């Protein structure tokens, strides 16, 4: 599948590693053929299954979630199939309790720490990949791909074992390094150290995506830009800030945005690690909604938390979302 688009190879440049899939067509596909009615309906018919699925399987749960959040839905109502509307009681209860705001704060801090670490280290690793020789690059890529490909639950289990209180290899290493109080340390005992393990797990699994894609993006930077910069007397650092960084900026924005979403709604890692414990202290919003809604069987309350969670997520990502939507409007 090597289809050449309008891109022209520049002589003297190492083979264009640019991507295998050219960008979507930009206004070049005028609908062909007679404007008969059948023709006009074709695209809609082709899209019908996808649209139907989206409306029924994504739209309806969202609406249902909204409806549930205005209901009093505890085990009694659940078993007897009662629908008891209770207005904004759920929201009042959630928003007036201190718990919710603590969880929001915790989720935001957790997301921020993870995303900053992922983006910083991921970018550095990506730039390192661009600098390495062939063999070393391949070696590092293999490592990255393995970490990336590990299924989340398998990775979580492995981290539990690495950080196990007894016979865990991390405690052994720390002990050998002279930190003897860590010999039988229980990592899941406190909020901070549980978060530390979860963060390490998430960062470890997320860096490869950033690093590999960033590396791929750097290979598309035209070399002439660096030559021009160095002719203008720019050193390595200046070349980086005036060529590399501006070129990668859209990519960095997009990736940061995706990482924010992914980290914010991380469920499996935190839940499988310690069920949001110790003492509910590592519950982020998705876990909190699950524990309150399903664990404690206050489904209406849980739905209200879910709805608020989506609002928080929208608020966090709104700036970028607007940018993307605008850009799409212009480009499509």
């Amino acid at each position, binding site marked *: *599948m090597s289809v050449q688009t309008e891109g022209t190879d520049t002589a003297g440049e190492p083979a264009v590693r640019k991507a295998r899939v*050219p960008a979507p067509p930009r206004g070049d596909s005028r609908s062909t053929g007679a404007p008969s009615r059948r023709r006009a309906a074709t695209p809609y018919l082709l899209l019908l299954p996808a649209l139907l699925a989206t409306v029924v399987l994504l739209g309806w749960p969202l609406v249902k979630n909204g409806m549930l959040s205005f209901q009093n839905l505890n085990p009694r109502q659940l078993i007897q199939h009662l629908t008891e509307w209770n207005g904004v009681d759920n929201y009042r209860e959630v928003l007036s309790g201190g718990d919710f705001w603590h969880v929001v704060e915790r989720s935001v801090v957790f997301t921020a720490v993870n995303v900053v670490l992922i983006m910083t280290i991921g970018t550095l690793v990506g730039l*390192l990949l661009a600098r390495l020789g062939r063999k070393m690059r391949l070696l590092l890529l293999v490592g990255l791909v393995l970490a990336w490909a590990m299924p989340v*639950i398998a990775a979580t289990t492995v981290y539990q*074992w690495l950080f196990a209180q007894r*016979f865990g290899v991390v405690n052994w290493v720390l002990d050998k390094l002279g930190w003897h109080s860590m010999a039988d340390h229980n990592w899941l005992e406190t909020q901070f150290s549980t978060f530390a393990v979860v963060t390490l797990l998430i960062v470890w699994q997320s860096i490869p995506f950033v690093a590999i894609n960033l590396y791929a993006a750097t290979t598309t930077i035209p070399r002439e830009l660096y030559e021009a910069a160095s002719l203008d007397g720019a050193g390595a650092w200046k070349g980086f800030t005036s060529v590399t960084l501006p070129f990668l900026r859209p990519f960095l924005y997009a990736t940061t945005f995706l990482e924010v*979403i992914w980290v914010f709604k991380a469920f499996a890692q935190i839940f499988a690690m310690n069920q949001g414990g110790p003492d509910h202290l590592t519950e982020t919003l998705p876990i909190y909604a699950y524990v309150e809604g399903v664990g404690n069987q206050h489904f209406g309350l849980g739905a209200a938390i879910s709805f608020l969670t989506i609002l928080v997520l929208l608020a966090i990502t709104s700036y970028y979302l607007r940018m993307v939507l605008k850009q799409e409007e212009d480009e499509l």
Partner: protein
Amino acid sequence: MKRSLLGRIWPNATAVVLFAGFVFPVYWMFATAFKPTGDIIADDPVWFPTDATLAHFKKAVDADHFWTLVLNSVTVTALSVLFSLVIALFAAFALARMRFRGRRGLIVTFMLAQMAPWEVMIIAIYMIVRDNDMLDSLVPLTVFYTMMVLPLTILTLRGYVAAVPKELEESAMVDGCTRIQAFVKVIFPLLAPGLMATSLFGFITAWNEFPLVLILNKDVEKQTLPLWLSQFQTAFGDDWGATMAASSLFALPILILFIFLQRKAVSGLTDGAVKG
């Protein structure tokens, strides 16, 4: 001179350290799975499994319901990937090749759908599934997994379809093919690599999915491997050898698939869905 030598060494040294850091957890999973229990609970870690054993794998495989769960996971994953590919193929073709009112809106819709926070929609989905008496069944899982992977599948495939030159299709039509024939005979074969790469993402998502099966299926016979694995360690009382063997068995299919399809999938992921 000294400086340039240092300049040559540190990137490579860093790369080796990073490689070790990224690989170690994966290595430790496999190593532990093959080590005899005596070596796993040794005071000093045994770094290489010298006398390897398959005992832990046997224990994991012999665990209750293991094969049922494998079958469940494979069924749910394969079907949802298949369904989403078929549905997405139609949609992607329309989005890539045709102009019509509402096209932009649809693309934006799928872009937003791709970011849907499924993890916080599980309560609503639970109520919907329960109201339809479908708890403890593989059908809702398959259906919702299909939807989870559908948007990205559409957006990625759109890129692949658009990459097939329109002239190929047109010349086939000049030669007397109908549009459908042109699609089946010309475009579809060219799409095969794209389909493979796209399905990788679906495989990973469906194979790994955890929150939904956690809430929907309490019946062990109807669960999938991620749920089993997350409870394995508790069920087997800190038997890390068996737990790591179970993890290895669960991870292996994805690791293999990923290594084969990663290159294509990466470009698909970024070009089709994420504007870079």
